[in-house]
């Protein structure tokens, strides 16, 4: 796990040790990682949360790295994303499920919000209970109650409305050209995204596309 200094772009080893895998907690370089996935930094607490086999918390000042209680998954499952929930706590992606974790409770567990441990195809206007996903790679709140998901194996961008608790497809993929109206545009191997006030940026196998969604 490297530390990148902006401006100078200097890269230093921050935590773990090069070439040594593992899952151990500990102070920065004592900790071990195995293919860590997404990270998110809470600007209020200045803690960094890291998705992987367990959800882990990095204290930037105490330099301790610890697994959060009750977040380590059974074999074969892995957290594929983590982000700050606008209502508090964390939203966690686990390949086929969207979960929440309450950071204010000492006895918190991962609560299923949508999907289950079985992968499945996208469906239109599914309730949270009925929705199925197939490898959730990334997510971002584009509005306080609208979570945009990258459903990679379904090659789909999907929207979770946290108020109505309905999952919809953002766009019909694969029927038009690469550069097209969003209703016809073709996406391939979508796997990551970010967004600003005007565009959603999507990483695919090869290109990065942008989808205008504001104005």
């Amino acid at each position, binding site marked *: 796990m*490297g530390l*990148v200094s*902006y401006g*100078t*772009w*200097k*890269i*230093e*080893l921050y935590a773990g040790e*090069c*070439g040594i895998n593992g899952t151990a907690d500990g102070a920065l370089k004592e900790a071990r990682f195995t293919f860590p996935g*997404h990270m998110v930094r809470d600007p209020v607490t200045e803690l960094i949360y890291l998705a992987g086999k367990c959800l882990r918390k990095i204290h930037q000042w105490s330099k301790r790295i610890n697994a959060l209680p009750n977040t380590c998954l059974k074999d074969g499952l892995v957290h594929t994303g983590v982000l700050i929930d606008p209502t508090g706590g964390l939203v966690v992606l686990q390949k086929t499920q969207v979960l929440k974790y309450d950071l204010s409770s000492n006895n918190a567990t991962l609560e299923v919000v949508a999907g289950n441990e079985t992968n499945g195809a996208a469906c239109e206007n599914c309730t949270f209970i009925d929705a199925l996903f197939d490898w959730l790679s*990334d997510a971002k709140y584009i509005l306080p109650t609208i979570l945009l998901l990258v459903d990679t194996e379904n090659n789909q961008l999907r929207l979770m409305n946290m108020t109505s608790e309905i999952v919809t497809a*953002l*766009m019909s993929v694969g029927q038009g050209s*690469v*550069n*097209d*109206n*969003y209703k016809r*545009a073709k*996406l391939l*191997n979508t*796997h*990551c*995204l*970010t967004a*600003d006030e005007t*565009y959603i*940026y*999507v*990483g695919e*196998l*090869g*290109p*990065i*596309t*942008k*989808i*205008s*969604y*504001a*104005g």
Partner: protein
Amino acid sequence: MLGNVTTLYQADPDLANASKYLVLKQHESDTSLLVPGTSSALGVISKKTGVFTIVAGNITASGYKEGA
């Protein structure tokens, strides 16, 4: 309101597999996208021009090495 989909950046075909592991983050400047995962390099993509610039590492050589 959703509008058009356009290609911002097209990876070199030889790097297509490497770019599968792109992870996009908003850069602090808000004028570019940070791409920490392009093979073994760290890059930024200009949101205005789509130009991809490597800022650290080497896109074809992996390894462990700290430095500026």
